[in-house]
């Protein structure tokens, strides 16, 4: 992937993610999150993970974000009051940013983990390779996932409905 494509898209991704976190209006936060998810799908395509990119757009940007926007507009909480947090949260975030800056510099400057320009074998990231891994090595987790989704559906319905009395 060429640097001339990567760096503008990465910058846009970081700006959109910051908008999600910093914008006072939750609706605009959610729309920025949709943009973030779409850009991540673009990066997945660059990493030759086409199926994951399609799932990202359909499941995340489609289903989950519609749910978020629906709840935001249903509750209509408006903008937050003060954004101030105590010194503890500020210290934690500052420390995290310092560690991150150090790690990023170390990674980007040294290029410690290589494998650059590796050609993927034919069919890598396609439906066939993914499905074979999913239905052989990961069959039990896959079945457990279906149970998890069922539990989540029942739980969401029970939690969200009004009391019948």
């Amino acid at each position, binding site marked *: 992937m060429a640097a001339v494509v990567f760096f503008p898209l990465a910058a846009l991704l970081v700006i959109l993610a910051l908008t999600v*976190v910093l914008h006072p209006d939750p609706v605009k936060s959610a729309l920025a999150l949709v943009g973030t998810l779409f850009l991540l799908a673009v990066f997945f395509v660059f*990493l030759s993970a086409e199926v994951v990119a399609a799932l990202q757009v359909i499941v995340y940007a489609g289903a989950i974000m519609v749910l978020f926007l629906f709840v935001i507009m249903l509750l209509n909480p408006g903008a937050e009051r003060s954004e101030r947090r105590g010194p503890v949260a500020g210290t934690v975030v500052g420390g*995290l940013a310092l560690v991150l800056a150090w790690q990023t510099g170390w*990674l980007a400057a040294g290029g410690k983990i290589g494998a650059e320009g590796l050609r993927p074998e034919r069919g890598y990231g396609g439906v066939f390779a993914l499905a074979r891994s999913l239905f052989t090595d990961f069959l039990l987790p896959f079945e457990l*996932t279906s149970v998890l989704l069922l539990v989540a559906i029942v739980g969401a319905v029970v*939690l969200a409905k009004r009391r019948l009395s």
Partner: protein
Amino acid sequence: MVGLSHFVALSAILFAIGTAGVLLRRNVIVIFMSIEVMLNAVNLAFVSFARSLGDAQGQVIVFFVMTVAAAEAAVGLAIIMAAFRARQTVDVDEMNRLRW
């Protein structure tokens, strides 16, 4: 040339942004969206390493992360709605009692 280290660095930046959102915001829905940003940062790292190692198993893990995120979003938003119905607020500082 853009390599694995750039993608991992981008993933780390996104994860830190999401963590900052969880720690700094008061609106419980925005905190939830910050968690989604963190999950997506991890997904990016998984896909990058899968590509670097030439092994599709990392992409399968991303599939599972997406499923768990969908379940989490459904249940979490239902809890937020129930809490809002009881307390008329989405501010986490107001939600300071275990029973209402």
